């Protein structure tokens, strides 16, 4: 790796080499049976080079792949003038997100974990077509630049997800958890799954109109992805963001505080530097409802005349990886907890929704803060869950409806896919519901 950077110094103006290696093992059970064991041993490299002031990129599986530097030089011949310099030597914060015990996990260990979860659920409900998946992963990331950055980190993660399709509808009720270290059977989560599954036995459709909606942690992506789309550097630079020139202004209820916290040691997504080798830092994005900052990588920071916030991530909404160019994303969002329990939120509603997933998010005008999704969750009447939502959509503009948040829970959990998030239950006062 170092050798390639040294070669690059001789032939190009600047270069940045990104090298990711992952080893993962996963075990999946479907309908209570072991369906598949998967092992991946992957290496991938991205090289960006600036030559004669123009930037080009290339990718490979190893830094030793012949012709890598030449490919980058060729791409640079067609590239746009480079408007920023690759990261210099950095002072990287200390982050501990690695456990050698996780590296030693075997397929048999993951089989045992999955079977302990199956046994735990079946002790309470033995009639469900359960699915369980456990994965152990080790990731190593190294970034070097000709400007002197030498960044390296290693992460481990064990993730566990389980659930069952709702009888008759096939949509799942699911729970998930992850950890840097090997996991024990999560009994409290199993109890919650069994309780929630019990709530699905009846279907219920609210009447079309405005109702309070509780967003479970799993569904927090529904309001955090529009926030990202408004606060990311490209939208700010192109002046398409609804958050343009609103730093210091109230954009949400004062109950909402959202921090980008890449340095949270012990969290699986914690990291000392971003995908451009820029040091990461803990930073409020929204503090008590007030917008505090944007997400910037080096490209968008240069366009705005600011410094990168250490938020370059190689991903797009549905895709990502080494071959994706860096763009501004949150690293790990933490929505601050409140002081009530989510069960008290439910008990306090005359009528409302508890939503743990929304289908069709990406079809909406989310960059403007809007979404209209099929609500997956439960219908609450007179303080109790009366059944799972059926044929129900919720529509909102978060910059209007999230001005009025009635409560935030003390319990927190991860979001589903899309973003690395820890979030509480959030009770929004009123939102458009399309039902019967």
């Amino acid at each position, binding site marked *: 790796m170092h050798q390639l950077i040294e070669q690059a110094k001789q032939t190009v103006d600047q270069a940045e080499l990104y090298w990711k290696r992952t080893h993962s093992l996963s075990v999946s059970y479907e309908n209570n049976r072991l369906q598949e064991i998967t092992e991946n041993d*992957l290496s991938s490299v991205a090289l960006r080079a600036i030559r004669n002031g123009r930037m080009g990129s290339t990718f490979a599986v190893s830094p030793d792949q012949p012709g890598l530097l030449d490919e980058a030089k060729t791409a640079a011949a067609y590239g746009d003038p480079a408007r920023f310099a690759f990261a210099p030597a950095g002072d990287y914060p200390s982050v501990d997100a690695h456990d050698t015990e996780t590296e030693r996990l075997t397929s048999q260990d993951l089989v045992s974990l999955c079977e302990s979860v199956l046994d735990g659920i079946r002790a309470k409900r033995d009639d469900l077509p359960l699915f369980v998946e456990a994965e152990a992963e080790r990731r190593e990331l190294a970034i070097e630049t000709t400007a002197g950055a030498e960044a390296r980190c290693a992460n481990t993660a064990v993730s566990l997800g389980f659930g069952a399709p709702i009888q008759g509808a096939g949509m799942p009720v699911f729970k998930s958890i992850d950890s840097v270290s090997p996991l024990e059977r999560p009994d409290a989560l199993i109890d919650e799954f069994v309780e929630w599954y019990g709530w699905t036995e009846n279907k219920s459709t609210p009447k079309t109109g405005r109702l309070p909606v509780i967003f479970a942690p799993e569904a927090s992506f529904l309001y955090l992805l529009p926030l990202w789309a408004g606060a990311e550097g490209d939208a700010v630079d192109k002046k398409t963001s609804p958050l343009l020139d609103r730093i210091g202004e109230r954009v949400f209820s004062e109950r909402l505080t959202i921090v980008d916290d890449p340095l949270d040691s012990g969290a699986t997504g914690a990291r000392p530097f971003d995908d451009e080798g820029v040091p990461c830092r803990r930073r409020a994005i929204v503090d008590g409802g007030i917008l505090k900052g944007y997400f910037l990588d080096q490209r968008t920071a240069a366009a705005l005349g600011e410094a990168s916030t250490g938020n370059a991530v190689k991903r797009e909404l549905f895709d990502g990886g080494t071959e994706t160019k860096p763009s501004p994303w949150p690293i790990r969002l933490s929505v601050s907890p409140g002081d009530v329990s989510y069960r008290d939120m439910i008990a306090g509603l005359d009528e409302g929704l508890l939503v743990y997933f929304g289908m069709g998010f990406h079809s909406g005008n989310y960059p403007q803060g809007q979404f209209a999704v099929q609500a997956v969750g439960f219908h609450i009447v007179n303080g109790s869950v009366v059944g799972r939502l059926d044929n129900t959509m919720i*529509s909102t503009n978060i910059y209007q409806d999230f001005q009025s948040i009635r409560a935030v829970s003390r319990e927190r959990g991860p979001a589903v896919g899309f973003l690395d998030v820890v979030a509480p239950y959030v009770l929004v006062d009123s939102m458009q519901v399309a039902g019967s």
Partner: protein
Amino acid sequence: MKEKLAGIVGGMTADYADLRYEENRKTRISFRGERLVEVASYETSGGHVRAYAKGGKAVASFSDPERAGPMAEAVATSAALAGERRDKPLRLATAPTITEAFPIESPRDARRASVQEKLDLVAHYNEMILREPTVATTEANYDEFVSHRIFVNSEGAAVEYDIVVANILGFIVTKRDGVMQRVRFAFGGNEDFGRLQDRDAELEERIAVGRRLLAAEPAKAGLFPVILDPSESGVFIHEAFGHLSEADGLQNNPAFREKLRIGEPLGKPLLNVFDDPTIPGLPGTYAIDDEGVLGVRTPLITEGVLSGRLHSRETAAEFDEPLSGNMRAVDAFNTPVVRMSNICIEAGSDAFEDMVASIDRGYYLVGAKGGQTSGDQFTFGAQWGFKIEDGRLGPMVRDINMSGELFATLRAISQVGDAIEGSERGGCGKAGQMNRLSGKATPHIKIDQVTIGGV
């Protein structure tokens, strides 16, 4: 290479094993607004190995070809471990052993166009969009994927095949008085570079839509009859029904297997749906899948009745149904899963004007904007639409997303248009794999009632 891979597979201690090795070349050129933000052209390679042993299954991906042997051994051991934990062994349907090559050749092959030609073309379209005064920004991309794949299995199959797809696609983002709208455009979907050229007239139409949407009203929330244009009906049949045709999703879902037995009536007799990877020119067209099985046309709904399903060798054995050749992986770092090739609705007999005339108060929805399925619930969006009032098309509407329950919605298809249009762009997420090689060919359809999420 083929012989070396066959040697590895032949040496594995498994009841069945296969190995796929890929050399992939990608070219990407991206504009954001007036700026060219990426020019990248590169090669990657890697392999994927699968084994069935003692009724269990294991798979592995690797990027270093030197790791093929050790990973194959590990997979055989893991498959046996998996088999020991199963009370019901996994089996594979018998498949013909193919030993052919399936190269792609085209007179205007995108592989032969220079990077400069590609750059000039996407720059031209991007500049066209930027000339529109209401445009706030653009996203314009050239995206080319070329894959040369070798597949060998322990039964003696040895296949070489190509995938070549080139697209120009992006977004037109318009803005006025606090309203912002994004309209998609996409050209291409196969190896033909000529299909990317001379598309100015269609792009101008899309730019005009972006401008007109700024003055459009948001859709109203509620239950409405709708007419879907071919782009929308393609996404509808893909999301709402197509995914439930993929047998790997049903394999371990007893409730749905019961609901989706062959012979089950699902819609009115006017509804005919099939999957076909052999239609020339569509994004989901291929000769052979990533399990060494030839792609064939598979009827899915015939005269309103469930008539077939999409399969892997494993699910074909499980369901005791014919092979369909639908096992596909986006690259070597992913295991193949059952997925649609080109999903199609056969043309019906209804003229568009008659369909509009049949609605008192509803919407005509145009332009696919993605969708999502879970179980029998689905959602999908429209880029724009028109109110229908008293049997006539009314003003344009925006911000439309709709949802429904599959079985009720299929039964509610009451008219099928008389002309088919094919898609030029795929894009289907499943099992963490974003497959761009997924096509559709469908007519207008009328659905008597869907839920619209709006203001």
